[in-house]
């Protein structure tokens, strides 16, 4: 790369790119490379977490041997599973301990190693500095450290499978005291979590400082794209909520290795004897500390997705977003309220009912800004000339899917209805509607949308549409039956739900879920193929393939080191589409009047 700085006094912004493969692509401090590293790594983790779930759904579809089961004549899949996991899946039937391990790891991987890094770190890193017209993040080296600590944390958590007694078995929530007496894998989990929290702390500081301090000239906060606002609120949530889990994890770690009893009650009976600890601690303390993080975490999963959907919808309806200010205001209100709703996860924990009333109220309140966001996005479609390209399809699907996810949450937020629904498949159906058909498809839409900016070529539209239908339809066949099963009272976290008589009437749905899950897996192959094929053979994209207005489309695709040849200047709001009298139907932010 020969970067000739011809001008005398080329100032500090004219970075010379780093030399050599290692410094350019592996230990890079460039926000774009780090964003793509996050993108690839988090997709890999998503694939791993999804595969684990397929094993579990296989078990749930046929939990016990039928009358005609013959161990001599295993089918192809049973034979394969028997060969791959002779200890934990003999004859293709899963050992309950292995089931618990996969369950805990699926949740941990999908949330902490998959969706959050994808939504926040991958897109935030790649897109946000471009959208605000900055040459890079505020602290590039910290940014690189953030990625590498994340990777180390992920590896530590994954390596718990090799620990004595296997991976953590106490759910992704790691409820004490079960998690305190669990085998060694739980310690790996705790250490891994502390490392990942450190990584997200690095990221959050970087995002906040960059957004507040490094915006281009003229880009006031009121002109900032919704995606950047979403990232800013998310970063504040990460900054303030994650340390509390770190505190909780530290206490649990000490309970496990130093003989303390923060979460161990006095004279706890374990294994038919009194657990040898001083005692006096409270298991509910862990739940409070955990959910103080984990409820804001839900919005960490969701807000970047909302931001992405807002960008895609504005571009593809060719009209300004409906209610930009209301949208941004709602995002901020969600951010604040998300800190005071956490105990709605704990109505059945033995918490005081008067406290439950408070959290019912706050939980109902937070649905107001969430509905406001959804309404703004929905009304943005009205009167638009919609382009149904792949990113737009995913963004459009987000609206009803997130709608189902949000609305099914209301009965869980009310303590009286939660009594029945708690710990059933209804809960699983609800939060997966928020995270998978909700957040995740928005993030996939974002991948199609910003892929041209990342690699200079568009992804294939035909394959993209196949991928879309093979994702959204099976996802609904996976998660909607769970809502039905849950309302019938089918309990979650059971490797063989058929052992309980009351689960039997709705067991049949599990077969459908299993099949739909397998179809969903196959449905991701076009995406995988498309991603790599388009690197070389995709339609070449110019700087602004979607005719969009925000700043990331003002620099070349892919942007060079340092992003903008000259620091851009912003003259108007982010979504000036179809302005009467303007020569084109889009009016870029950096175009002088």
């Amino acid at each position, binding site marked *: 790369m020969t970067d000739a700085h011809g001008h005398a006094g080329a100032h500090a912004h004219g970075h010379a790119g780093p030399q050599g493969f290692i410094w350019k692509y592996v230990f890079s401090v460039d926000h774009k490379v780090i964003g793509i590293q996050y993108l690839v790594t988090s997709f890999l983790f998503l694939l791993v977490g999804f595969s684990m779930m397929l094993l579990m759904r296989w078990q749930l579809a046929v939990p016990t041997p039928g009358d005609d089961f013959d161990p001599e004549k295993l089918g192809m899949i049973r034979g394969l599973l028997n060969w791959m996991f002779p200890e934990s899946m003999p004859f293709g039937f899963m050992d309950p301990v292995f089931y618990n391990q996969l369950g805990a790891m699926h949740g941990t991987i999908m949330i902490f190693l998959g969706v959050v890094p994808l939504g926040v770190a991958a897109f935030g890193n790649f897109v946000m500095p471009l959208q605000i017209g900055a040459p890079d993040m505020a602290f590039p080296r910290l940014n690189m450290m953030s990625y590498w600590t994340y990777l180390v944390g992920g590896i530590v958590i994954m390596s718990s499978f090799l620990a004595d007694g296997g991976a953590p078995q106490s759910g992704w929530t790691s409820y004490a005291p079960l998690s305190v007496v669990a085998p060694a894998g739980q310690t790996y989990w705790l250490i891994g979590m502390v490392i990942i929290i450190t990584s997200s702390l690095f990221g959050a500081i970087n995002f906040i400082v960059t957004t507040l*301090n490094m915006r281009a000239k003229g880009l006031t906060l009121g002109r900032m794209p919704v995606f950047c606002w979403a990232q800013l609120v998310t970063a504040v949530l990460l900054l303030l909520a994650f340390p*509390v889990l*770190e505190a909780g994890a*530290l*206490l649990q770690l000490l309970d496990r290795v130093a003989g303390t*009893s923060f979460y161990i009650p006095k004279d706890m009976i374990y294994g038919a004897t009194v657990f040898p600890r*001083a005692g006096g*601690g409270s298991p509910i303390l862990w739940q409070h500390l955990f959910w103080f993080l984990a409820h804001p975490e839900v919005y960490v999963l969701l807000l970047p997705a909302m931001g992405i959907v807002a960008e895609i919808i504005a571009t593809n309806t060719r009209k300004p977003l409906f209610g930009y200010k209301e949208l941004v205001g709602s995002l901020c209100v969600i951010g604040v309220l998300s800190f005071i709703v956490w105990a709605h996860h704990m109505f059945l924990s033995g918490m005081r009912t008067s406290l439950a009333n408070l959290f019912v109220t706050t939980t109902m309140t937070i649905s107001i800004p969430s509905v406001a966001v959804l309404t703004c996005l929905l009304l943005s479609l009205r009167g638009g000339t919609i382009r149904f390209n792949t990113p737009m399809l995913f963004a459009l699907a987000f609206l009803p899917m997130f709608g189902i996810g949000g609305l099914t949450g209301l009965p869980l937020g009310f303590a009286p209805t939660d009594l029945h629904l708690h710990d059933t498949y209804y809960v699983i159906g609800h939060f997966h509607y928020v995270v998978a058909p909700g957040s995740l498809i928005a993030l996939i839409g974002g991948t199609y949308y910003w892929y041209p900016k990342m690699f200079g070529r568009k992804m294939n539209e035909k394959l993209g549409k196949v991928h879309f239908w093979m994702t959204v339809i099976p996802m609904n066949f996976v998660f909607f039956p769970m809502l039905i099963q849950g309302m019938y009272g089918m309990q979650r976290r059971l490797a063989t739900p058929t052992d309980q008589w009351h689960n039997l009437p709705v067991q049949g749905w599990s077969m459908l879920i299993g099949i739909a899950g397998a179809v969903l897996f196959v449905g991701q192959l076009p995406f995988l193929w498309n991603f790599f094929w388009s690197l070389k053979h995709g339609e070449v994209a110019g700087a602004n393939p979607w005719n969009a207005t925000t700043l990331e489309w003002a620099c070349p695709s892919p942007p060079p080191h340092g992003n903008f040849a000259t620091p851009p200047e912003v003259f108007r709001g982010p979504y000036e589409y179809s302005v009467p009298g303007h020569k084109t139907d889009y009016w870029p932010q950096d175009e002088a009047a």
Partner: protein
Amino acid sequence: MSTAIAETNTGISNAKLGTWSFLASEIMLFGGLISAYVILRSGSAHMVVPPRSMMGIPLATFNTFALITSSVTMVLALAAIQEGNIARFQRWLLCTIGGGVIFLCVKAYEYQHKWEEGITISSNLFGSFYYTLTGLHVVHVTGGLFLMAYLLWAGTRGEFTPESHDRVECAGLYWHFVDLVWVILFPILYLL
């Protein structure tokens, strides 16, 4: 382009805004632990608080004094570099490091003493909280001392001028925060 301050949108330098953000997250970390302690202290029937005479209040008071003094000398070091007086800056910085080292030595003595008297990390809930809270604080003090040593080294290389000494100011913010945490820990663990 050496003064990055004028270029930022907020007028606050990136380093300082970053430091404040970091401190906000630190508040939540200590806040989580301290509130856990306060809740179990007031809510658990089995939180046995050792008699105050066992806690060695005079020594801890001295330690509090040492740490607060080191905060004052940190301010003086910053004032010195703002006037461009490197020698005075280094003297005050050494005093700050001295205060931190005294604090750690006294803490080590206290830990040993308490452990021998039977207040250990696993003896009861109070001991667990005592060692966890003060231990995390000790980690922060130690980190601060490394930071000060780095400033001392960078100072000898002539990296700080009256116009550019962001790192000194940020390290100072951190050091005051560490001091403040102790000012909260001291009454809730020793006095109340």
